[in-house]
């Protein structure tokens, strides 16, 4: 729903489902000897990582831009450019955008309210590792019931099928990268980095579309655009 300041905000239910599907896509099996609650099927480490994955789900133009970065770094995977084109040539960037705040470590939004329904219903458990003065790391445990719900989502709620696809794409894109590295990736975009703390990160749709046209018009892949040193 559209907030008073004109910034669109998702409903609690949308947030909960989106995060469930994102955690389901991103969860990895618990490490051997790791202490996990009963019925745990997968673990997601760090809140920062979860926040950054969520940023790309909620901002399809940034995702498209990152896909093009990947395409420039790996020109032999034309699917990357196709995916970027599918996003940018539709109205997706406007229709699916839920702006996030710029915070100290990047895009951020309080997750507790959105995760509460999942915890209450026995789909998710979370814990935190404490340091001397503050929380060092948040850990999210996907429970068996949570995975069942996530897997039945396409059939039960077709309107939410888009999130199933998109969370998988985002996780696939950044698979194997840590949250801090993700943040650095997002900082590569000037509009994001220039956004003052505590303000909503604005769209880069036109910028991304312009770059798409350049890449499509280029004689061969990898001719222009920024290269991601960390991805190479």
């Amino acid at each position, binding site marked *: *729903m*559209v907030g008073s300041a004109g910034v*669109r905000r*998702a*409903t609690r*239910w*949308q947030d*909960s*489902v989106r995060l469930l599907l994102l955690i389901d896509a991103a969860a990895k099996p618990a490490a051997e000897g790791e202490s996990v609650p009963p019925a745990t099927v997968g673990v997601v480490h760090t809140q920062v990582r979860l926040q950054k994955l969520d940023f790309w789900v909620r901002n399809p133009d940034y995702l498209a831009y990152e896909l093009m970065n990947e395409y420039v770094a790996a020109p032999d995977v034309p699917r990357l450019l196709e995916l970027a084109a599918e996003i940018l040539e539709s*109205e997706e960037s*406007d*229709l*699916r955008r839920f702006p996030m705040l710029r915070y100290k470590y990047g895009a951020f939004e309080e997750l507790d309210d959105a*995760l*509460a*329904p*999942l*915890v*209450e*219903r*026995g*789909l998710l*458990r979370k814990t935190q590792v404490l340091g001397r003065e503050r929380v060092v790391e948040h850990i999210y445990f996907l429970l068996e*019931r949570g995975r069942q*719900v996530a897997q*039945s*989502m396409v059939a*039960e*709620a*077709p*309107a*939410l099928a888009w999130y199933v696809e998109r969370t998988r794409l985002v996780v696939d894109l950044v698979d194997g990268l840590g949250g801090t590295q993700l943040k650095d990736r997002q900082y590569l975009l000037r509009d994001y980095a220039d956004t003052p703390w505590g303000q909503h990160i604005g769209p880069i749709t036109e910028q991304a579309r312009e770059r798409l046209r350049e890449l499509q018009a280029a004689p061969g892949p990898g001719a222009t655009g920024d290269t991601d040193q960390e991805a190479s």
Partner: protein
Amino acid sequence: MTAPGPARSDAKDLTVAPSASDILKEVAEKLGLTPVQVERTLAEANITLKSPTAADRRLRIIRLRASGTKHSGDDFTVEQPFTPGVWAIVHPDNSAGKTSLLEFLVFPLRGGPRDLPPDVRSWLRHLSVDIAVAGRAIRIVLDVDDQPHPQLRGRILAGESTDHLLAADDEALRLLATASGNEEVSRCIGEFFLDAMRMEHTNLWQVTGGADGEGAPQVHGWASYFGACYLNPGGDEILLGDVAGGLPGRLMELFVDIPYSTALTQLSVAGKREKKTITQGQRRAEGDAEARRTEREAWQTEIADVTRQIEARRRTAAQDISPLLRAADQAATELRGMRALLEEAEQTLTEVSGARMRAEQGLLDARETWQARRVLGRLDPVCCPRCEEPLGSVRRSEEREQANCAVCTRPLPEVDPETAEALLAELEQTLERAQDAEREATDRRLRAVEAVQSALADHREAAAGLEQGLATSQAHDRLRDLEIRAAELRGRLEATGSTPPAPPVPVSAQVLAATEEAVRAAVDAAAKQLFPAMNEAIVELATRFGVQNLDSVKLDRAGKVNAVKAGVKTTFKRLSRGDRLRMRIATVIALLRVSADRGVATHPGLLLIDSVAAEEVTEVPARTLIAELQAIAAELPELQVVLTTAQPELVDALPKDHLITSDGEHLF
């Protein structure tokens, strides 16, 4: 002055000639001037018109005396008296001095020798000739002073009478003139004879003369006239005198004394000089006119070109540009209006699109929320989301039985699928309206874009039209320049339009021409009477002298005899050498006879002939010539002939005292 010649004629012809005042009056009337003005104008050209009066031009030799020293050192002395009649200098030897003796006469009379051998001349120390000229007793004395170098000195002396002259020494005579040096002596003698015989220098117009090659008068003096007395050798091709051209005829006229003949010659020469001046002036004027004509042609060409340009520019410049300005303004206004409409349409479209997007988002959010709620809502709470501790059975049963939340115990909100469907339907309708509005706004924007493009095209067209119109209006300035240039050229053409009139013939030239015409008429009238008589006399005399088969001659004023021999026209040059001499003698004697018949002034009556009959192959014709001369001398008591011959037999009929000869090797 009276004409002292023998009054054998009634002098009728003399009165026929108009007087000088008659001629002046005639010319004055013709030109609208007064006779005095005419006379003054002629005087400015050094021409004086005198009524004809007969001048005494008789010249007779009375005595010749010569002395000197030969190359051999021997002195010689000649003293020979002369009387009228035929005299012969005779000696069979070629180098006996016949020609030299004749030249002793020629030297003082002509002012210089003609054929005197240089060696004989160097011997001469003293020449003295007593003559009767125009009735006056005159002695001409030439002395050659040896020291410091040979120098000719001449004196002209006058005696009371012939007898006085013969008796008196030089000192007893009246000295008229003296001169030193060849040229001065020659000039002095010439002036004396011309003055004594009332003759003038003759100017003959030489066509190619002058520094500019366009003609100039040539002066002929006494020496030239003397050619009428001292006949040319038989081989010469000129009738009389030693100058070709007009001189022979002039000599004849002079000695026949045709009235006004001198004036006519002077007028003719002056007229030609005037004509030359006028011709040169005209040529300059023609040159100027030609230059101006070329200039005018260039102007004509330019004015035609300028006129064409003016016409072309007038046609295009007729267009008024104010409608173009209005059209361009209107098009600009229209374009601005259309652009404002487009901006508005785009603004509207942006707003409507935003609204539509928000409707889409709203529907999407509602649908997702509803389905998420349906999926998650079905799940019963199993623990507290805060503490994650399991819920007790009491809370579960309360929830089932009293619809109180098992977690927070507040009443559970109704989750009514029908309500949700109704809400979604409403959002769908909102979206549909937003989509309609967006389509409409899109169409409106499209129409606005088209309108802007159309207005832009109209504006460009109007601007181009205006630009062209403005370019044409700049042509106004050029048109004005062209019109000014055309006016300037027309002015120039008008100012130079009429070719300048030829410079007026000056009055002096008119007077000269008219006077020449009048005088020529008088001369022609006199010549018309004179020449037939001359021709008749020449034919008779020439035949008597031995010219065979001479049918006729027709003497003209150029001195040509135009002989017809045996029916064939024969030029003087084609005559035999002997016939040429006979014709010369016949001409001179005819002059004498005709003049004497008319009682006018005449040939001096002295005839010097060197080597007469030298060309004759046989003796008979030569004898005939001399015999006839002797006979004529008897008829004409004024005639005195001195001839030379190497053939004594030719002159044996002459009186012995008229033979100048010697038994020795030399005549002197």
